């Protein structure tokens, strides 16, 4: 299968507010040297705790923010360097569904105008617009009589359906879903997940599915990237990641999902606070149960420990010995 998206060594820093006029500007690294790729009709899940840079990465792919360094190739063309017509064409290829369906729909536009907006911007002819509009309503399961209603007249799940219809209007190749279900009722979450799955099969789109909830991601993803402190710390096929998590941070995430029963918790992975001024080391060192000064260096990179299974931890093999494979437990 063809690679539809390739992210190569992308970094993004944000300038922080200065303490006073004379102090030097400080920077916060939100995305640090991230490389990922996505194939046609595949789903890449991105998990990580709040503040790990997931949304920033999505914004970089969507060209809402510009990266400081690195390349983002959509269908082989670098969106960070594209201009004019080519840029507009590339932007069409990636559309987005946001977490908060209240902020993602303009409250002063009715459903018809919301869904037609992408078509109007791209100057699609009128008759075509109407056809697309009605078929989109069908595919996302909205009634035809809702066109003149405004966003506040809908529930969260329905609003998310409107947002999905809008994202599909331009027939994009990639849809980035940034926590699309985390603000919804549990009962509605499954419906929206199924809708996304169904759309993937029908329209052959690729997804980037962002979440801090591993269990939702595993339902829908082919491949999962785990992010911590601006960097990807582990990347593996979904099943492999669940069976065989290598990075201590991934294990921490999985543990918090799988062992709902507190008594059942693995004693080795409790919240650990190492000394916070450790010598230059891996970004996860402060919370790592395996921290050791010799191996945990800041320059450690993602390395392939198994086929298609990458991890950013020099101790991964020792760790395997410590925890054993998850299947054996």
């Amino acid at each position: 299968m063809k690679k539809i998206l390739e992210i190569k060594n992308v970094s993004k820093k944000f300038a922080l507010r200065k303490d006073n006029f004379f102090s030097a500007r400080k920077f916060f690294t939100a995305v640090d040297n991230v490389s990922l790729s996505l194939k046609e009709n595949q789903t890449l899940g991105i998990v990580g705790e709040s503040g790990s840079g997931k949304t920033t990465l999505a914004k970089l792919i969507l060209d809402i923010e510009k990266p400081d360094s690195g390349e983002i190739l959509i269908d082989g063309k670098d969106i960070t360097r594209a201009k004019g017509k080519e840029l507009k064409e590339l932007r069409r290829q990636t559309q987005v569904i946001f977490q908060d369906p209240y902020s993602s729909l303009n409250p002063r536009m009715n459903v018809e105008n919301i869904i037609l907006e992408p078509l109007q911007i791209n100057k699609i002819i009128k008759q075509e617009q109407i056809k697309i509009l009605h078929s989109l309503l069908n595919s996302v399961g909205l009634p035809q009589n809702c066109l003149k209603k405004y966003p506040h007249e809908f529930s969260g799940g329905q609003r998310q359906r409107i947002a999905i219809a809008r994202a599909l209007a331009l027939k994009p190749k990639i849809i980035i879903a940034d926590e699309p279900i985390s603000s919804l009722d549990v009962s509605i979450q499954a419906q929206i997940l199924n809708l996304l799955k169904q759309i993937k099969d029908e329209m052959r789109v690729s997804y980037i599915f962002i979440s801090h909830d591993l269990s939702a991601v595993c339902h829908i993803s082919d491949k999962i990237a785990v992010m911590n402190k601006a960097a990807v710390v582990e990347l593996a096929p979904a099943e492999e990641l669940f069976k065989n998590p290598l990075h201590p941070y991934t294990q921490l995430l999985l543990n918090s999902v799988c062992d709902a029963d507190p008594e059942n918790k693995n004693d080795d992975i409790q919240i650990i606070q190492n000394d916070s001024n450790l010598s230059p080391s891996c970004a996860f060192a402060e919370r790592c149960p395996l921290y050791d000064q010799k191996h945990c260096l800041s320059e450690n990179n993602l390395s392939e420990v198994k086929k298609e299974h990458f991890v950013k931890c020099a101790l991964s093999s020792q760790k395997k010995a410590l925890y054993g494979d998850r299947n054996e437990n």
Partner: protein
Amino acid sequence: MKFENLKKSRTFKRFRKNKTSVIGAALLLSFVFLAVFAPIVSPPASSDSYLIPQAGYSQEPAPPSKEHIFGTTEQQYDLFYAIVWGTRTAFKIGVMVVFVSLLLGITIGGLAGFYGGWIDEITMRFTDIILSFPGIVLAVVIVAMLGPGIEKVIIAIAAVSWPGYARLLRGDVLTVKNFDFVAASRTMGAGDFWIFIKHILPNSIYPVIIVASLDIGSIVLTAAALSFLGLGSPAGYADWGQIIAMSRNWILGTSSNPFAYWHTLLIPGTAIFLFVLSWNLIGDAFRDILDPRQQ
């Protein structure tokens, strides 16, 4: 018992609030009526209907009488005619100033908030400078430079009132531009103009329009002050401020009767007072409605 009291006082307050805004609206409506039907209420004598007819050339004001129900002021200008057509002038000035200053404020504040960076920095420092002067002083300076005249007064007041609207709008634009629907629109390929017109303005413009409209009362007051200083309309033009200016020499009356010329000051003064009052009453009601703490 205590609860009953509380409830009573609250309903009472609400009722009172309601009543004052109703009075304001009624007052304002009668002014609108007067302005619209000015040609019927007080038919113009000459081709320029804003020119107040004169009944003779004597300096001394005449008290209210059958022919001149509000009397005449200095140089026999008919007060009733001046008040009726002055209503039109007041609305003309108010609406024009609001229109011009909103146009300026929305464009400048909108661009500053939307683009941020140095555009924002420069325009906001500029508004700081204008806002640091008392508006009327600055307006006097501007009219003094441009020369007297109604249009000049409109330009001067608009020039000192847009910064407030620009700042108000800028704040809302800063909030709205961070909403996800703006980001989504960008990914669809929308340009700045589309986003500004379709998303930013519709979600930020209403408060500033309401606030600016409610300022018509104080705008008319400022215009009257400029006219009083001789910087407004030409002599004989139906304009409340100028009528008050004409009464300056007659405020003290005669030595035997200090109130001999009361009508020259009191009648146009009352007109301005009621006009400003009506806007303020409505404004208070609107401010309560718009106040987020009360919702």
